[in-house]
């Protein structure tokens, strides 16, 4: 599903070159559940951005579903993101003026899906994620957990192959965070490839495969319980 070969990403900070990713090679199989952990500034977010096609490597190769996506242009990157990848963010990133349902349907709206089909596809997700009562409320009327559920529904409405979650519980209390991880694991059990970046070792340890990133390199890659 995902193959990174010797991928590097450099940033210039204060006139100095910083290697946020240093010749990283990584294979992720379809349907895998992977957590990425590491200290702040270790490069785990850069890795996630490159996996999510929000950023492009300075060197190396990235194959996504056997297709070289290293040098795609802006339009191709956008189209691939839209079809293949779902994003979940720490701060939810819901549009405040839209209702929960409209937020969930946003990727379909951007993809030009007609309203009737949008409704047909969002309805089951709203039911499944326990948002039926709240779907006409705006984000500021929802709890943190509900907001993140809206964000997850939005991430999966386009039926992506991969779900990338950046600190999905970082802004939630323990209880709500647990619920969100349960939800994500449920989606993984349904066949979705799940990549979670987290600071929280307890959440990180729940993944079947755990990667530890230090100084832009994969320091540890372990599988199994």
């Amino acid at each position, binding site marked *: 599903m995902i193959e990174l070969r010797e991928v590097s990403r450099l940033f210039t900070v204060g006139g100095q070159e910083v290697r946020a990713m240093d010749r990283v090679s990584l294979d992720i199989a379809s349907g895998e559940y992977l957590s990425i952990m590491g200290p702040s500034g270790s490069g785990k977010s850069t890795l996630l951005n490159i996996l999510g096609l*929000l950023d492009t490597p300075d060197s190396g190769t990235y194959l996504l579903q056997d297709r070289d996506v290293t040098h795609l242009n802006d339009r191709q990157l*956008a189209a691939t993101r839209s079809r293949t990848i779902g994003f979940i*963010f720490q701060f939810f990133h819901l*549009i405040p*003026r839209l209702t929960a349902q409209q937020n969930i349907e946003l990727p379909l709206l951007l*993809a030009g899906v007609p309203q009737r089909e949008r409704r047909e596809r969002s309805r089951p997700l709203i039911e499944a994620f326990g948002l039926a009562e709240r779907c006409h409320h705006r984000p500021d009327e929802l709890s943190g957990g509900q907001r993140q559920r809206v964000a997850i529904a939005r991430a999966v409405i386009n039926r992506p192959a991969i779900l990338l979650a950046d600190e999905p519980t970082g802004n939630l209390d323990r209880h709500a965070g647990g619920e969100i991880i349960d939800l994500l694991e449920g989606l993984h059990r349904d066949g979705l490839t799940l990549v979670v970046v987290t600071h929280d070792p307890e959440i990180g340890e729940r993944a079947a495969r755990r990667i530890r990133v230090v100084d832009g390199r994969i320091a540890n890659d372990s599988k199994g319980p």
Partner: protein
Amino acid sequence: MRPLDAIGFAVTSLGGNRVRTLLMLLAMAIGVAAVVLLTGIGNGARLYIVDQFASLGTNLVIVIPGRAETASNTPATLVGETPRDLTLDDARALARSETVRRLTPLSVGEMTIAWRGKERQIPLFGSTASLLEIHHLRLERGTFLPEEDMEIARPVCVIGAKVYRELFGQQNALGELVRLGGFRCRVIGILGSEGRSLGLDTEEMVIVPVAFAQMLLNTEGLFRILIEARDLATIDRLKAHINATIAKRHYGEEDVTIITQDSVLATFDKILQVLTLTVAAIAGISLVVAGILIMNVMLMAVAQRTAEIGLCKALGAGRLQIMALLVTEALLLSAIGGLVGLALGFAGSWLAVQFYPTLNTTPPSWAIAAAFGTALGTGFLFSLLPARRAARLDPIQALARR
């Protein structure tokens, strides 16, 4: 994204900040209303003036002493004199053509009129009986100048309504002797108070036989000769007749300028059209200002909505789509602002008609189209920069904003 969805999305984002949206709408609306109203008033003024001219009859030909194209080069024009005067003999000679229906010479000057100790300055017109019909004057009381030879300097006068009121009040004026310059003169008629004709206030004028006026003003020369052609088709032949007659009488010189009502009308029409356009262009500047306001506010909006734009990019929107979203917002604003402006402009035109019923202030259709088009155009143009900025936002940095 489908066009209708893009409009819907733009509506939600415009509704998200109502004060900002209202301010932008107001700016656009005022700009469009200004263009519509000012062109309407300009056009109304043009129609009014053109109408005034047309009411004099379009087959009027005016003969003025001196040639327009040479006049500015001769030293004589510096002191206000023309090479050769038009005389009553010229007028008489010009009248001898079947292309002429009516002809009247006109002599003009400033004079003092006095009656029983009251006196005032008046514009004095020396003419003949034909002036009444050529100039479409209306007589209130008495008779107009007698039908007789233009050489007879009969001391009679026809006075304007205002001159009558100021000198005589409510008293009878007909048959009274007034003093014009150094001569006594009998009042035989009073003009109606129809106001202005050809830029002259008929209420203030005093008309006397042309030969009498020449005596009073101590001049042989005429101010001009007014000729009414038999019909529109004979105007060209009439002009040829005028040129030939004048050349014969003035030793081969065609030293007169012939103005037809048509050409005066066309010139006025042109001048007023340019004025209307100028006023419209000035009003158009306010539309550009509105466009700049839209640009500033949209730049602000892009800054405020950075995370949203980053999110849309992460969810699969390309640069063009982001640009299209923002341009749609600006176009929507311009369109609504433009429609509100048109409504305001029409309301203003209607109000202007209530105060000045003679003015037809209906804005011309080109002005409506131009105002609305400029509103959309400026909206589009000035949204490109913010839209481009938004499209170029790095989604990672954009999403880093909360």
